[in-house]
């Protein structure tokens, strides 16, 4: 019920994200979602791609340091306040949100959130109790299918 996210080490300097994207382009890799977190001199790029395995192999060959992290992808209504209920529930159960980012699909009135939480098992339990849809890796293609 989790999604595989690829985290990549990038230096915080002009052109470094461009160079990375060029690698993806060269290998015809499609990014579904991305988020860049920065420290002073470096950043962690977090991406969801269409083919995680091939992308990992490719990035390692190209000399990037990267790893797979399991995250939760949830589907929410694309409307104001949609996040309040579930975030409150997570907070009430003392589950901490480490980071999160959002993406939209091509169709529907849905929005999607990637969540990294300190207690993934507990989080799943809370979310399922609320009736939140958790999108697993295989279902990703449906979201992006035309």
């Amino acid at each position, binding site marked *: 019920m989790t999604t595989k996210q690829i985290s990549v*080490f990038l230096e915080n300097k002009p052109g470094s994200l461009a160079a990375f994207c060029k690698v993806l382009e060269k290998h015809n890799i499609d990014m579904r979602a991305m988020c860049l977190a920065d420290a002073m001199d470096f950043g962690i790029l977090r991406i969801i791609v269409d083919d995680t395995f091939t992308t990992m192999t490719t990035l390692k060959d190209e000399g990037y340091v990267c790893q797979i992290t399991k995250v939760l992808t949830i589907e929410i209504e694309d409307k104001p306040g949609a996040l309040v209920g579930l975030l409150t529930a997570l907070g009430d159960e003392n589950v901490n949100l480490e980071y999160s980012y959002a993406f939209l699909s091509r169709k529907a009135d849905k929005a999607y959130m990637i969540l990294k939480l300190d207690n993934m098992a507990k989080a799943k339990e809370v979310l399922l109790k609320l009736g939140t849809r958790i999108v697993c890796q295989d279902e990703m293609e449906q979201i992006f299918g035309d």
Partner: protein
Amino acid sequence: MGNYFSPERETASLEQIRAWQTEGLIKAVNKVWNNVPYYRRKMEMAGVTPDDIKGLNDLKKLPFLTKDDLREAYPYGLMAEPLEKCVRIQSTSGTTGRRVVAFYTQNDVDLWEECCARALVAAGATKDDVVHVAYGYGLFTGGAGLHGGSHRLGSMTLPMSSGNTDRQIQFMTDLGSTILCCTPSYAAYLAESIHERGLIDKIRLKAGIFGAEAWTEEMRHDIEQALHIKAYDIYGLTEISGPGVAFECQAQAGMHINEDYFIVEVIDPKTGEVLPEGAKGELVFTSFSKEAFPLLRYRTKDICILSREKCSCGRTFVRMSKPLGRSDDMLIIKGVNVFPSQIETVLLNNGYAANYQIIVDRQKHSDSIEVLVEMTPEMFSDEMSEIKAREKKLVGDLKSMLGIYAVVRLVEPKSIVRSEGKAVRVIDKRNLYKG
């Protein structure tokens, strides 16, 4: 221009100097042969016995001693006197983190302090001066050396140690310091701080003795202008005693080596062959007068030129140029010896690959060191706080290994410049050895 601390020695004839050295060398060789198994073994391996050393011309028959020997013999292996006779140790960093420890008897301390007193007098100090010692105190020889020299001379000694610039300046103005002893970069920093506070008119300094790191003539000029003083260089190394092995006189044209205590040679660092006077090569010292820790033919790795031309100060001791470079990869940063291998050790100890580059710079006469470390899968994490914690641990480990603060910058794999496939380990932007 006759200001000497020991005039009869500092202006002795060359014949007299040679006589002291010959007598001292023969005595020292016999002493280490009898008292130091490590030396005896080294001499036996080189096929030399004390009987082969009859004079200075035979010096070249003795094997060289290097920092590796000091490390191997650590801590007591090179001592030529029983520990009970020793009164002091001083220490300096060595390669791969093992420190070099030097032992002193009371006579050794006296000898060292005399060398420093000579340096002070050569810089114009008298017993009426206030000597402000802002070298670090402790294991480092800078503080202890000039402190002792000032005592010997009978000057008022201010044992300031390094750091706390406000207090340095306050004592300087309140107590009227006249001679400043510290690293040249700290002198430049003090000068700047004094001007910032508008206190230059309250400063009574007339001269400074600045050593423990390389500095250029341009830097000398800047410091002299800013502090209205004469700035003198001083040379030394813990292994041989400490600062004061050689010192500048008022001619400011090279440093006189205290030849009544130390024999100096210049060798080709590749072949070990002794070079003729005036040739550029590595300095090798024989500290024949030292009791506890006499070193025979110790390779300094400092590249220099010697000159026996007559000096206007009247001293007859040979002069050495400022070091023109190193024959190994040692860096001197903020007066502290740094070997790239120490950084490598820290990385390996942390379980990381040793892909690094050291960038040394000097801004406003102050050194900085930045260590670029290529990111590895072991160091990487999806969590920023994890990476930050690992980075912080590296900074801490480097601090305790090197003794100075180094900035760590994590960079992408394979991003460190490689030259013919080999990573360039050191980029020194300071340009120190241009003279």
